[in-house]
């Protein structure tokens, strides 16, 4: 929960005086000297391409340098500004100072010689200290302090960290209980502020870990010592152009209804923001948060907002505002962090989860099917028995996609082709058909579960993504559907794979053009299994045009949409061309469309032996019978559409009722009364 701090002018004055006495005077500088600070204030627009990346604050003799423009190409300008303003000492985030120093040393630039460089707000690491000292020819000193003004410490000339008792009383308590630990042992740093009488903080949990020291300092000062400050190592965020941004957490500090948040840099161009929304949080707040991050990182940084119930803590229980999984070197040299320990651990974890889900799916499916009464276990799919399997056998026999000698166009060929492949594999391993079909169903059922998890991982944490995967693998209707070789069994994973690749590109890798093509190809393959996916490619192309505006320019969006459509066509065209060559007709994936549409207009009124009786209004029944009588006029999809429009004009009320029934029944309707089995 955020803390609002009340400070009077006197408190601020006392704090400034303390800083003057302990941080400046100890190192031979004063507030009267000209100095520079490298801090988190936005003193130049982040998209500024030319200097100045700073402002001169005359009142404080201060050159405020932007911490958001520290790209290597800009460093000479920073150095020029330090020279021009005759800066005597430098203060700032150690990560920013280090970045400056690094480029100075790498490019052998001439930096002004300073009296001292003082790090604040972040731990000063040894390699940073060495580099900064070498670049600016001065000692580098660390300070510890906090905006709450409850504790502070500063490094003396011997390199020891002295506590500033005037600021507050520091205790180091054990992790498990509220008792002080001995000197030399790390624990929670708890502080009681003494400087701020307007809002005293008593035994305030700073969130830091520290170790007290029992030694005395060679400098002669009697102030107590801190041996070390631990756990303040917020990773820097590194942009694609090499800018190192030391602190991004200020983006949450203002007025957003967020309880807590954490920024995770997953890739050179991807920041995932975990946040715990307050009750008043709205979509506009999310957009504002993204904008604030963009203000600091630039628009090309992809920001993914992920609501969570709590922010995970590190092993020592510390909250980290920023975590970067990206190495601190040029993206061009190393690319994304594929080889880092973090990613390897993460990948290993994901692999276990995926494997576990797949196995769990197999177990749940097998248990469900084994519990089914004998009458339900038989293959009741007439489509399979009358079409898909015979066509698969014809393919295996080298006769192509044919049924009784003619090209089989009643259904698209995808499912039969997959079956033919499965049967061929079964032949290689001497497996009977029943075993092959069982393995076929189990494999695709498991694959669909894994893909639901993968889709979930695009937007959720691993734990949250587990929820839809678990729900799907135990979904009774899914288990029922996969009990026999229905075309939906392979259709579902192909559909999910297509959508997964699409969202992967659209949300995370907007310039991975190949992914759009693959998404289109998979959408086409899905359509070749069941024509109900017709329109999926067009829909995805439309989506990328609409939602891609945050990441892609207009031309790039059209290019992405074009690739999806191209992939879609590439997958479907061979089948369409083959049918045209054999029949002279262009078909919408299959010739079953018109018949199925006719069935859809008459199914509730016209009895069939396997259909259940359903009560419907008389006028709807009459309309259905009318459609039934006009079946000869509905030979093609276009003819069927003409008849439907004609009847809708003549009998709009009944037609609307019929459509309403169909719209509702889509979510529960069943038809399977076959072989004395009850429908689900």
């Amino acid at each position, binding site marked *: *929960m*955020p803390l609002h701090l009340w400070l009077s002018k006197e408190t601020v004055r006392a704090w400034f005086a303390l800083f003057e006495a302990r941080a400046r005077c100890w190192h031979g500088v004063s507030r009267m000297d000209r100095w520079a600070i490298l801090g988190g204030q936005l003193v130049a627009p982040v998209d500024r391409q030319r200097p100045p990346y700073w402002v001169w604050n005359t009142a404080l003799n201060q050159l405020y340098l932007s911490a958001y423009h520290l790209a290597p190409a800009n460093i000479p300008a920073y150095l020029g500004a330090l020279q021009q303003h005759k800066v005597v000492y430098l203060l700032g985030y150690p990560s920013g100072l280090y970045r400056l120093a690094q480029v100075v040393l790498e490019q052998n630039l001439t930096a002004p010689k300073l009296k001292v460089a003082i790090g604040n707000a972040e731990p000063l690491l040894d390699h940073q200290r060495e580099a900064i000292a070498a670049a600016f020819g001065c000692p580098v000193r660390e300070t510890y302090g906090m905006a709450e003004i409850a504790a502070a410490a500063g490094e003396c000339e011997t390199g020891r960290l002295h506590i500033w008792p005037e600021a507050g009383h520091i205790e180091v308590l054990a992790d498990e209980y509220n008792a002080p630990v001995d000197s030399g042992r790390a624990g929670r740093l708890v502080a009681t502020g003494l400087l701020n009488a307007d809002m005293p903080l008593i035994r305030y949990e700073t969130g830091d870990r520290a170790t007290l020291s029992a030694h005395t300092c060679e400098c002669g000062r009697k102030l107590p010592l801190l041996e070390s400050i631990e756990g303040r190592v917020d990773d820097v965020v590194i942009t694609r152009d090499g800018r190192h941004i030391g602190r991004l957490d200020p983006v949450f500090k203002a*007025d*957003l209804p967020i*309880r*807590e948040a954490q920024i995770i840099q997953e890739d050179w161009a991807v920041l995932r923001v975990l946040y715990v*929304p*307050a009750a*008043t949080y*709205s*979509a506009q*707040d*999310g*957009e504002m948060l*993204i904008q604030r991050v963009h203000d600091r990182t630039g628009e090309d940084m992809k*920001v*993914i*907002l992920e*609501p*969570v*119930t709590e922010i995970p803590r590190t092993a020592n229980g510390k909250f980290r505002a920023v975590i970067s999984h990206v190495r601190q070197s040029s993206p061009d040299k190393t690319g994304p962090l594929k080889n880092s320990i973090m990613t390897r651990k993460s990948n290993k974890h994901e692999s276990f989860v995926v494997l576990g889900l797949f196995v769990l799916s197999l177990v749940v499916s097998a248990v469900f099917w084994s519990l089914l009464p004998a009458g339900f276990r038989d293959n009741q799919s007439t489509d399979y028995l009358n079409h898909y399997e015979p066509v698969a056998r014809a393919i295996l026999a080298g006769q192509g996609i044919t049924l009784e000698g003619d090209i089989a166009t009643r259904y698209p060929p995808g499912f039969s082709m997959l079956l033919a492949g499965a049967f061929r594999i079964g032949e290689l391993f001497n497996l009977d058909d029943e075993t092959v079909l069982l393995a076929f169903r189990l494999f695709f059922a498991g694959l669909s579960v894994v893909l*639901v998890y993968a*889709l*979930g991982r*695009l*937007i*959720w944490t691993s734990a*949250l*993504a587990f*929820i*839809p995967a678990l*729900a*799907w693998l135990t*979904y009774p*209707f*899914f288990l029922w*559907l996969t009990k026999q070789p*229905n075309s939906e069994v392979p259709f*579902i994973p192909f*559909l999910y794979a297509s*959508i997964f690749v699409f969202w992967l590109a659209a*949300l995370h890798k907007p310039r991975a053009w190949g992914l759009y093509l693959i998404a289109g190809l998979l959408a086409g393959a899905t359509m070749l299994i069941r024509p*109900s*996916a*017709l*329109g*999926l490619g067009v*829909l995805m192309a439309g*989506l990328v045009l609409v*939602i891609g505006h945050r990441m892609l320019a207009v031309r790039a969006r059209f290019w992405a949409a074009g690739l999806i459509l191209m992939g879609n066509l590439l997958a479907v065209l061979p089948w369409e061309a083959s049918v045209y060559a054999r029949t002279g007709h262009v078909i919408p994936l299959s010739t079953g469309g018109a018949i199925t549409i006719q*069935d*859809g207009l008459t199914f509730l009124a016209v009895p069939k032996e396997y259909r259940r009786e359903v009560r419907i209004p008389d006028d709807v029944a009459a309309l259905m019978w009318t459609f039934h009588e006009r079946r000869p006029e509905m030979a093609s999809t276009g003819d069927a559409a003409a008849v439907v429009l004609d009847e809708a004009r003549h009998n709009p009320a009944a037609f609307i009722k019929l459509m309403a029934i*169909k*719209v509702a029944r*889509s*979510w*529960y*309707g*069943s*038809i399977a009364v076959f072989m004395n089995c009850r429908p689900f």
Partner: protein
Amino acid sequence: LIQFVYLVLIIWGTVHVLRQGGDVRRMIAGNWLVVLNFWAMTVLVIPLFRYMLPVMGLLMLALPGVYLALQARRQTLSLPSGQPVNSDY
């Protein structure tokens, strides 16, 4: 009845997720468009739930929203005043 329970949970999760914004909202909303496409195709032919079943997995991606909604509700109710905590951060 079973299907009704699933649909209620999905709609609940979707509503919560759509309020959150960002990529979660984009993806869930986009998936609903895919569902609408399938729904239209199903209405065009015999309206069987079997034809809609393949997209149920996509809809289940909104289920974590139910969990998050419950968490948010629990946290709000646990406050003494029953009001949200200070919205500032």
